[in-house]
């Protein structure tokens, strides 16, 4: 997906996004937290194999190689273009059913379409449990102990595997790939899978840019009474 510093530019009558010159990256929640925690679990001898799965066309392969440079035993690209969470989850669940994973880690959401629904849908499709907004993951024998964000606090859950967990900050510390990893990534297998038959249930018809702000009204730092008055009588927010 586009790097976080990308300025969004629309094209084709606002029906598409102009990706010319855009740097594509791994979804930060997937890379910084889900992938790194998976690597840690393997380093600790808890996980045996790590597969990195993505849905996309051949043009996403450089991004997958970057992920493999951090680690992982093999990468899987499901050869489809999907913008519907049900469709994406359907492709991944179909492949996951075939392999039979004990633990599926995802980011808490993708930073492009901000759905945060694919992980839960995979869990539902595979009849698995799901814990979202995780901030800490520990696995012992066949049980996961997961800290997760709740409204106004934190909760610790436990659940037996198999399990899908959506990760956010706290789960792991981001890593930077080193030269050895980058070299090794070139030789690690990247499988291309033909997608299962899944029909999308939604479609993006068009985009719109947020309205430009009318311009900032400056208030003197010596006159905070005026600011409070503006917030009360003009903005009507206090």
């Amino acid at each position: 997906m586009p790097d976080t510093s990308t300025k969004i530019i629309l094209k084709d009558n606002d029906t598409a996004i102009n990706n010319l010159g855009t740097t594509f990256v791994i979804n930060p929640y997937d890379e910084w937290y889900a992938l790194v925690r998976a690597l840690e679990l393997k380093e600790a001898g808890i996980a045996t194999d790590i597969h990195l799965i993505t849905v996309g066309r051949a043009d996403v392969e450089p991004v997958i190689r970057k992920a493999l440079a951090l680690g992982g035993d093999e990468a899987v690209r499901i050869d489809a273009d999907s913008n519907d969470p049900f469709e994406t989850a359907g492709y991944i669940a179909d492949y996951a059913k075939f392999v039979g994973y004990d633990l599926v880690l995802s980011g808490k959401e993708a930073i492009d379409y901000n759905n945060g629904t694919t992980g839960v849908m995979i869990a539902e499709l595979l009849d698995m449990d799901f814990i979202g907004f995780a901030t800490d993951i520990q696995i012992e024998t066949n049980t996961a102990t997961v800290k997760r964000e709740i409204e106004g606090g934190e909760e610790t859950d436990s659940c037996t595997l198999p399990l899908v967990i959506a990760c956010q900050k706290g789960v792991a510390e981001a890593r930077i790939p080193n030269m050895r990893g980058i070299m090794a990534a070139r030789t690690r297998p990247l499988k291309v899978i033909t997608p299962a038959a899944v029909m999308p249930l939604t479609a993006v018809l068009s985009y719109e840019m947020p309205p430009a702000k009318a311009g900032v009204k400056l208030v003197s730092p010596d006159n905070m009474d005026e600011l409070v008055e503006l917030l009360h009588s003009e903005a009507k927010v206090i």
Partner: protein
Amino acid sequence: MSVIVLVEHTEGNIKKKNFEAVQYAAEIAKQTGTKVTAIVLGTLGDAEMEGLGAYGANKVLHVADSRLNELHARAYAKALTIAAKKESSQIIITLNDINGRAVAPRVAVQLKAGLVSGALYYPDTAKGFVIKKAVFSGKAFSYVNIMSDIKVIMLMPNTFPLSTGSGKAVVEKLEVEFGDKDFNVKVKSVDKVTGEVPLGDASLVVSGGRGMKGPENWGLIEDLAKELGAATACSRPVADAHWRPHHEHVGQTGGTIRPDLYIAVGISGAIQHLAGVNGSKTIVVINKDPEAPFFKAANYGVIGDAMEVLPRLTEAVKKFKLHK
């Protein structure tokens, strides 16, 4: 036919955002010429449930199983799916919040329903069933068409102002048979931050960035937040430096918030930060650097040193409250 809406509650109370969801469901029901059924899970008083009528609910289905007082997403999804089938609901509404995100996608899969998360407006039925939502964490909006017969909409909280009417909803019991696997995820412990306004629900937010210089100065942010009844937030560098807990981080890789008022103190306004907060209705920027990009996205700006401006603003709010 009906629109069905999941209504959550904590400690016997229903929150404002859940009323908003009912009101949203009622408006869609009006547009589509149908009625609203709310579903309530767990222990809640009849008066609270009947009161949903004031926001447009005609009927409340109550699954009075006390195990549902805490979130068990599979059980919640099962109850919601059964209720939707019973009511022949074509439209299912939840909030786009932590619990909604654990439940709604399961319901969507069970009913083969297209789902839109983070809805910001009512569906436009002129060209299908098209819903506006924010994408790229608020850098743009998209219009998403749901093509399936049954539709699931997750409403972004704090999108519509709340208006109360009158009326009482009819409460009906709904029996749902749950299995062991609906309760596989066990809650071991809960650690709630008390005395603070939860960030996701807050209509007023005071946020600090690197310009606050260090965690020792956060008392100034907290004083203002306390005076306003606001939640506190921070920018990514602040969370990364562990000056503040990470759940306070707002921006493209942190939380996305849409309060009525966002006061940004000592935050320069990088594009990633703006993405998480530019849905705020009013933005105030306090920064000593007049070139800070955040001023371009602000409604009100104060060019000055946060250490001096913050105590003055807190005083001004105090004075305002006294004379109100």
